């Protein structure tokens, strides 16, 4: 996982991820308008939508993770008239990630630790609290969470809200009353496991994964029964095929990913037991193929000399069956990752014209700063081009999927390797991008930060970091900017336009059918941008840096609203004097015309 850090110190990132989409029982009330708008070549043809356009039920808006809303009341011509409608404070001063959900005129949001779930009544003026739910997580989890005590998202399905607590429990709460339906422990904080990802709920399974790649944990994904919380399956991301659930149905596209028990033989003896490969990012789901997609985190420890071999299945993209957990295929994105380039970033499902035919693909902006287009039926990489400054590799060999690594940028124990770009937090971290089937463009928050990196021999001691690296962050990166909000054409692998920022762009993105894209900055600006031209249409200065994800909904009054959480945290790389200029917060801002 990542870390980002700037300093040597804190570095641990971990986490997870999430997202989800709901399906299953929620299917009946879908209006599925997406397809009709998906005219043209770059559309999302598979129906992955969740809920009505007026609502926002899962973090990615749909199971494809497009973060695209059909609402058009706010559009490129009137966005400059946006005004604040109301605000809400969570009372917690830590990093606020995730997007609020709206269903049936109730807004749901979960604070960072202590992970309080708030239900706000949108039918009343000022949206007062309807109820709160307190899971009371174990405070010991605070000190083992690498990258602040964030919660990356919560998921609605079938009248329930599902989310993870920092101390590695998954809860289901009645969305109407706030009463706890079940709460199960899926990870062990004594081993350094925490949970921060947003669950994926499909096919009566609540699918969650652990964080703790900096703590020597062994990554896994678990399928829980949606009704009871009972564990149905558990798939590890390292170790023997049996544990990883690589059975007869598993067919990797690339020869390098084929073989028996690669999750054991690609590690030093027993190294896989503490090898990371956690699953703290975003999960997408294709109902037609009945596969869900997620990426695994960095291998542990960061000191690569302690773990010779490709370290399977870390920094790897998996496609699994949500009901059984069995893997259908896997493609290792960054073999033997020695820079903390986890593969956890979102895999957005779209159908694109690639090489003359429409292909079912997923588009992925990896931490390693390459934008991948991958065939989601089999794991074949169709294209991989840099979307942010990088110097660790000269390219990705599409025949083998192997990165062509630059020798002088390989990290080594005892050697301070300087100026590696991107930094450990990547050309883009977990902060999720958005895709508009209207413009056929991706809207991507990116970073431009480099690092010096020295491997250090590390001992595994349960409950302490298993890290082994000294990092020095160089911010900004080449060109004098630290982040850029870009529009990316996935078919031609080309940046259409970009807005350079003095700090990494660390918020999620929302794009609407009104051709407006929204994002936030670490210095607290929330911006509306013309999705076609990249012109800033409107901006508002929030109380603290923005690491949350914007969402939009139609209120009971028929108006369209846009909401964003403000509250600096997580573990973005920022300059040394950042804290002299900005403070923390935990505030929800809601805007309308």
């Amino acid at each position, binding site marked *: 996982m990542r870390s980002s850090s700037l*300093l*040597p*110190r804190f570095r641990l990132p971990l986490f997870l991820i999430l997202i989800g989409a709901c399906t299953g029982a929620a299917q009946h009330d879908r209006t599925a308008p997406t397809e009709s708008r998906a005219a043209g070549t770059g559309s999302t043809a598979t129906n992955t939508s969740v809920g009505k356009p007026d609502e926002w039920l899962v973090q990615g808006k749909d199971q494809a993770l497009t973060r695209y809303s059909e609402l058009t009341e706010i559009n490129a011509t009137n966005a400059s008239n946006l005004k604040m409608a109301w605000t809400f404070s969570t009372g917690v001063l830590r990093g606020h990630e995730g997007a609020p959900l709206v269903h049936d005129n109730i807004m749901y949001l979960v604070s960072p630790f202590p992970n*309080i779930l708030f239900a706000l009544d949108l039918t009343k003026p000022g949206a007062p609290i309807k109820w709160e739910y307190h899971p009371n997580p174990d*405070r010991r989890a605070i*000190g083992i969470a690498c990258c602040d005590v964030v919660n990356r998202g919560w998921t609605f399905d079938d009248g329930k809200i599902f989310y993870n607590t920092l101390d590695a429990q998954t809860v289901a709460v009645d969305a109407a009353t706030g009463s706890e339906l079940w709460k199960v422990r899926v990870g062990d904080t004594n081993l350094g496991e925490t949970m921060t990802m947003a669950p994926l709920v499909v096919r009566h399974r609540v699918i969650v994964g652990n964080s703790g790649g900096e703590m020597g944990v062994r990554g896994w994904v678990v399928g829980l029964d949606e009704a009871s919380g009972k564990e149905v399956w558990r798939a590890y991301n390292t170790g023997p095929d049996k544990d990883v659930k690589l059975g007869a149905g598993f067919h990797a596209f690339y020869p390098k990913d084929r073989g028996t028990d690669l999750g054991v033989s690609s590690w030093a003896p027993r190294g896989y037991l503490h090898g990371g490969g956690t699953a703290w990012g975003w999960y997408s789901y294709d109902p037609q193929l009945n596969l869900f997609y997620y990426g695994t985190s960095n291998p542990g420890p960061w000191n690569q000399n302690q773990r010779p071999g490709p370290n399977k299945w870390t920094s790897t993209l998996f496609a699994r069956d949500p009901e059984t957990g069995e893997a259908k295929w896997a493609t290792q994105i960054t073999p033997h990752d020695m820079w903390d380039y986890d593969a956890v970033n979102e895999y957005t499902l779209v159908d694109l014209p690639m090489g003359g035919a429409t292909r079912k693909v997923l588009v992925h902006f990896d931490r390693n700063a390459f934008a991948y287009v991958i065939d989601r039926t089999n794991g074949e990489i169709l294209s991989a081009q840099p979307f942010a400054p990088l110097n660790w590799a000269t390219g990705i060999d599409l025949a083998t999927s192997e990165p062509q690594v630059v020798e002088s940028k390989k990290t080594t124990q005892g050697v301070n390797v300087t100026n590696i770009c991107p930094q450990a937090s990547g050309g883009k971290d977990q902060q999720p991008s958005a895709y508009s089937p209207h413009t056929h463009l991706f809207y991507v928050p990116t970073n431009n930060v480099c690092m010096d990196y020295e491997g250090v021999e590390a001992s595994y*001691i349960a409950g302490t970091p298993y890290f082994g690296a000294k990092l020095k962050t160089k911010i900004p990166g080449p060109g004098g900017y630290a982040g850029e909000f870009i529009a990316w054409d996935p078919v031609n692998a080309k940046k259409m336009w970009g807005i350079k920022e003095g700090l990494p762009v660390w918020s999620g993105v929302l794009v609407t059918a009104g051709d407006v894209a929204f994002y936030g900055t670490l210095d607290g600006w929330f911006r509306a941008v013309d999705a076609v031209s990249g012109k800033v249409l409107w901006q508002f200065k929030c109380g603290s840096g923005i690491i949350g994800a914007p969402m939009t909904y139609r209120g009971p009054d028929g108006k369209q609203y846009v909401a964003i959480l403000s509250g600096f945290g997580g573990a973005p790389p920022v300059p040394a*004097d950042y804290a002299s200029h900005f403070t923390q917060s935990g505030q929800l801002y809601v805007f309308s015309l």
Partner: protein
Amino acid sequence: MSSLSDQIKPAVFRGMRPSLPGALSTLIVALFLVSCDRDSSRTRSKELPDVATLQRIPMGPVPGLAVSTIKREIPNPYSANVGATADGQRLYVRMNCVYCHGWDGGGGMGPNLRDSVWRFGGTDADIFNSIYEGRPKGMPAWGALLPPDEIWKLAAYVRTLSSGGPPEFSPMKNMTQNDPDEHH
């Protein structure tokens, strides 16, 4: 590049009959080593305090009228011992303290150790107890793993951090100064 000591080593340390040059070299090296030993961590100022006594030191005030008879000021037997502090620094890295509290002690996942804020008290005994017993938000109880002697060395090093210069910046550092669970 064999050095002087390489050559004399067999004579000096293996019980062989030393030659004259060997003996002279040995003497020089021995003097050198002896001079180094002044800072050695193996020399501590006094006996180690009794752990059971340390464990009776309360973290907060003592209720009631009775004045506490517990002596809170138990000095670190290694305080100002440069050799022991260096040993403590090695432990700070090897026991993974560094990855929570920072290479320079400036904090990260764990609290900043370079400032003057001591959440659980800043006396030598408090620092020892914080390491020995662990603390509620993820600080492990090292008493189960490390002998008291090593914990005192670690405490000696931690003490030196708080008098250091400005730490390298970490955004986590500032965030760890507030309590996310004070919400309740």
